[in-house]
């Protein structure tokens, strides 16, 4: 199937630096995925747990045997917060990227292929959304959505979706507009394919190729935006799930008092996850974007001319 081809192609087509970028990004990402998936087993405590067997955790306790990344001023275990935070971050990112692709790509496809007034209206709306500073948009929407969905993962994910839909829409629409003129699309019309078949079977596969790249890069961006929302006290509420941005904000007052572990570790988690996603995105970009792609060449050396090989010319005949 075409999908399988697409999935393995990044590895077949990259080499050297591009492959290392992709690989190291994937490794980082994998680490966080493991943390997120196995959080209940990896994290020693719950994300909102402040005591065990009746005994309170220390407040702002430095790293120790019990709490090897220390505890926060809210009595939480830092390591557990990071592990559960990874789960929150990935949940939000996956949902928001999924939703924005689900909305943006088909809208872009339809808009680009059908054109006309529908196209104009959609482009106008999407451009308006795109023109807004993304953080501002996220703040506005998380205000609105907290009423609707509560302060959990869903609200944050939907707020982020609004930011990223226009990007998929624009990319898919523009590729569709140029692919619409391709001979194979005309050929599809010539065999009598209805519009929806042309879009689904002929255009879709050929215009979504850049979506994985935007997806991973957006995911990296979304981690940052989510943390920013949490830092501002918006988005995910502390009781709902662990969130690194919120932790960072809570760590601020202690920073001047030498309590570094409450800030450094969540910060590091954000940086590493964003880096991982960006690396994957860049690595994918090298394979998807033909202007960046370098063909993988098998090195060779010219074999010496053997007896069986060529002895053309050399004065035997009139050239």
């Amino acid at each position, binding site marked *: 199937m075409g999908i399988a081809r697409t999935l393995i192609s990044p590895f077949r087509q990259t080499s050297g630096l591009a492959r290392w970028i992709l690989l190291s990004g994937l490794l980082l990402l994998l680490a966080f995925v493991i943390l997120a998936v196995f959080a209940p087993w990896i994290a020693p405590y719950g994300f909102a747990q402040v005591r065990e067997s009746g005994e309170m955790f220390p407040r702002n306790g430095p790293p120790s045997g019990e709490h090897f990344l220390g505890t926060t001023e809210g009595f939480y275990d830092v390591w557990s917060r990071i592990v559960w935070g990874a789960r929150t971050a990935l949940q939000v990112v996956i949902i928001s990227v999924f939703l924005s692709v689900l909305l943006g790509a088909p809208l872009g496809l339809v808009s680009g292929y059908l054109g006309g007034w529908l196209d104009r209206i959609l482009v106008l709306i999407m451009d308006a959304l795109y023109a807004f500073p993304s953080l501002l948009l996220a703040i506005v929407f998380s205000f609105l959505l907290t009423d609707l969905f509560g302060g959990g993962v869903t609200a944050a994910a939907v707020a982020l979706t609004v930011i990223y839909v226009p990007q998929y829409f624009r990319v898919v629409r523009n590729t569709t507009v140029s692919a619409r003129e391709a001979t194979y699309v005309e050929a599809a019309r010539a065999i009598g394919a209805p519009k929806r078949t042309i879009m689904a079977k002929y255009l879709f596969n050929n215009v979504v190729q850049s979506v994985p790249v935007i997806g991973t890069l957006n995911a990296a961006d979304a981690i940052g935006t989510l943390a920013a929302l949490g830092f501002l006290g918006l988005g995910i509420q502390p009781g709902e799930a662990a969130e690194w941005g919120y932790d960072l904000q809570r760590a601020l007052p202690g920073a001047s008092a030498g309590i570094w572990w409450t800030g450094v570790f969540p910060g590091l988690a954000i940086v590493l996850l964003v880096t991982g996603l960006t690396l994957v995105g860049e690595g994918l970009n090298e394979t998807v974007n033909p202007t960046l792609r370098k063909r993988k060449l098998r090195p*060779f050396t010219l074999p010496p001319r053997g007896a*069986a090989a060529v002895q053309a*010319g050399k004065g035997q005949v*009139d*050239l």
Partner: protein
Amino acid sequence: MTDHSEPVLSVRDLRVWYGTDRGAVRAVDGVSFDLHKGETLGLVGESGSGKSTLGRGLLRLLPEGAQTDGEILFGGEDLQTKSAKELRTYRGPELGMIFQEPMTRLNPLMRISEHFEEAVKVHAAGVDRQEVKRRALEVLRVMGIPPTRYRSYPHEFSGGMRQRLMIALALVLRPSFVVADEPTTALDVLVEAQIIAILHDLRRDFDTSLLLITHNLGIVAEACDRVAVMYAGRIVEIGSSDEVFRNPKHPYTQALLKSTISLSTTGLHFIPGAPPDLVDPPSACRFHPRCPHAMEICADKFPQPVSVGPGHRVECWLHGPEDQMTEGDTGPLEKKEEIGVADEA
């Protein structure tokens, strides 16, 4: 017609291989020929025969990862040993190239005059604008472009005019050797004929030796003094156009001529099978799996260049040399693999 003075260009055993993800492509694999002053040599072959790589290889315009050996003697100097910087001084005043798609080579934001100024200034720094204009208008006149268009932009020209411009730009410094790679393929029949006439007259107008790469045998027959037929990285036959078209010796040349559809075509003929994969070409003679006259030796030993007439050379065991063949060699090839319909191109 062939002038027996020192050739302008003398190629000896040139190989150009380039890497792909499947291994090395033997695009040019041991090519030798001479080109004399003011001579037009047609290089014909099907796509994938290596003719374009050969043309670019002669000017050392090679794809990344390409490796070459052999000699390209130009005015007594071997271009193969020149550095990139030295080569730049050759391109323009000595070597020129004309491409298939003129628009990709013209800067849409530059006037024609600016193109000429740039081309001239790189090699002759002291030349002033008036002198550039004088030289440019002279070349343009030969190309049939009116002087009123000297200040125009490339998009204001039609396809044929753009190709004339490209030729004019390649010739303004009067190089002694020019490679034209499918210069008329993108053009219509009538315009093609105009351009071919211009190329044919280069000898008269500029004393230029031309390597004309094309897949159109008719153009070669009409416009070239000599013709080289390329198959799978080798020149399998070379000779004067008169000789080769009237009396083709190589079975591939014969088949190619026969399969070409012209106004006098009354029946369809074709070459069985498809051109070989140059990553892994057939052993010995590359044409033997498709050759109707293949002999035992053809699958076994590389054919030698054999002279079959004045200036007419062919690489095919049918024409000898007999002293290198034994009795059993000339029997029809037994174990020739069947060419399935699916392998047809």
